[in-house]
C-alpha cells in the first residue's frame, strides 16, 4: 500500500513539531521555517534527514531548501511520494 497524502501531512507535522518544540496542532500551513519557527540551517538539514529516514527518500536539496512554508514542503512531498 502506497503512502497517502494524509499520512505525509501527519508524519511531516510530527517531525517539524518536535524540532520546533511545539505540538503538531499548533503548527499552521503558512508557518515559515526560519521566520516563524526559528529554524536555522542545522535544524533545516536535520528535518530533511528525518524525512529521508521516514520515507527512505532523498529529497533534492536545491529544491527542498527553496521551500519556505510548511504547506510548500507538504505539497512537494505529496508530489514526490504519492503514486
Amino acid at each position: 500500500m502506497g503512502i497517502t497524502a494524509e499520512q505525509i501531512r501527519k508524519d511531516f507535522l510530527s517531525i517539524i513539531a518536535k524540532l520546533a518544540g511545539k505540538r503538531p496542532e499548533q503548527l499552521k500551513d503558512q508557518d515559515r521555517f526560519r521566520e516563524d519557527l526559528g529554524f536555522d540551517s542545522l535544524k533545516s538539514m536535520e528535518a530533511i534527514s528525518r524525512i529521508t529516514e521516514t520515507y527512505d527518500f532523498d529529497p533534492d536539496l536545491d529544491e527542498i531548501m527553496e521551500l519556505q512554508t510548511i504547506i510548500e514542503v507538504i505539497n512537494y512531498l505529496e508530489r514526490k511520494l504519492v503514486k
Partner: protein
Amino acid sequence: MSKLVSDAMKQQSTVLSMLRRENIYTYSLEVSSACANRIVVGGKERINFISNNYLGFSTHPEVLKAVRKAVDKYGLGTGGSPMMCGTTDLHYKLQDKIAQVFEREASVILPSGYQALLGSIQATVGKGDVALLDSLVHRSIVDGVTLSGCDKRMWLHNDTEDLASLLGRVKNKYQRMIIIVDSVYSMDGDLADLPELYRLKEEHGALLLIDEAHSLGVLGKRGYGLPDHFNMMQAPDVIAGTFSKFAGAVGGFVTGPSDFIDHLRHNSSAYIFSASLPTMTVAGVYKSFELLEEEPQWRERLWNNIAYFLKGLKELRFDTGTSRTAVVPLLIRDQEKTMTFNKMIFDEGVYASPVVYPAVPPAEARIRLGVMATHTKDDLDKSLEVFGRVGKKLGII
C-alpha cells in the same frame, strides 16, 4: 551600497541601517577601558554585563604582573606558527598544566577557542563518520564538523531521549559517531547532562567531545568545569575550550590522549596554519589557572552574585529561562522590545547584549547578561532597579 554587497546581503544591510538610524544599535561600540565590573563605553562608565570575563581575571594584579614579565622577555608575539618558532617554554608549561587540570595525557594550545573546536573536531572525525550535535552548540562546532567532512545530525537541545533515538537510528550507517555538546550553553546558561551523555556514548560505542568554554572556572569544586561538577573527569573522550571566558583573555585548548594530541598537531589546519598565541597571553592564562587553586574566593563570589542576581530578577518577574550559571538570559520574546530595552538600560548606565534573530528564533529574543565575580552589590542592585523600571515601562514585567 557598494557592489561588494550582494542582493542577499542587502536586506540585512537595510535592517542594520534602520537600527543605527533609530539609535538602538549597540553592537561593537567603542570601549575605552579594561573589561572590569564597570566599563567605559562611548565615553561613559557603565555597569558591565556584556562580557564573558566571569571571574574578572583579565584585570587581576597577579595576572598582569605575569603578563608584564613575559612581554619583557618574549616581546609582542612569537613571530611564527606553533610548528615553527611559536612554541615557547611557557607554551609547553601551560599545555602540561591543562593536561594536569583535566587529568589527561596531553594538551595543545590554539590561538582561539573557535580554532580549538575546529581543530579538535577535524582531528577526530572525517568522511564516513557522523557528528551528533545538540541543537544549541556553538557555531565553532558546526563549522568544525563541516570542515571535517563527516556527516552532521542534530538532536534537540538537552533532550537525551532524542539523542538515544538518533544513536539507535544511525549507529550501523557510520564508522564512528561523535556526540558534541557545550558544557554550558552560551545563550541560555544551562548545563549538558554529562552522566546521561556518558551512559549513552558507552552504550552505543560513540565518542564524546565537550566544549568547556562557559564552564571552566565556573563549575566544579575546583573550577575545572562540567567534568569536575559531576565528578566524572574521564567521561569525555576529548575536551576543548577557550581562555576567553575563565581568564578573560584569548586562545583555546584541546586535551586528550597523547597520540590524539600528536595527531591533531600534525593534521589540524586550525593549528598548523596560524601564528601561535602570544607568550604574554600564555603567561597570563597560566597564572589564571594557578588562581583557580590559590584564590577560590573568586568562584565563591561569582556564585554568590549569580544567586543574588537571579533571585532579584525572579522577584521582578523576569523570565530567566533555565539558566543555572553566570550566563543569564532575560527572555523578552519580542525583537523590537529587546532592542529598545537594551538601548534604554544602556542610557541608564548598564551595558548588556541584545540577542535577536537569526542568533535565536524571534520568539526567543532576549538580553544576554554575563554575571561577574567582581560585580559589587551596588552594581547588582542598581542594575536590578534599572531593569525593573525599564521592564515595567515597556510592559515586559
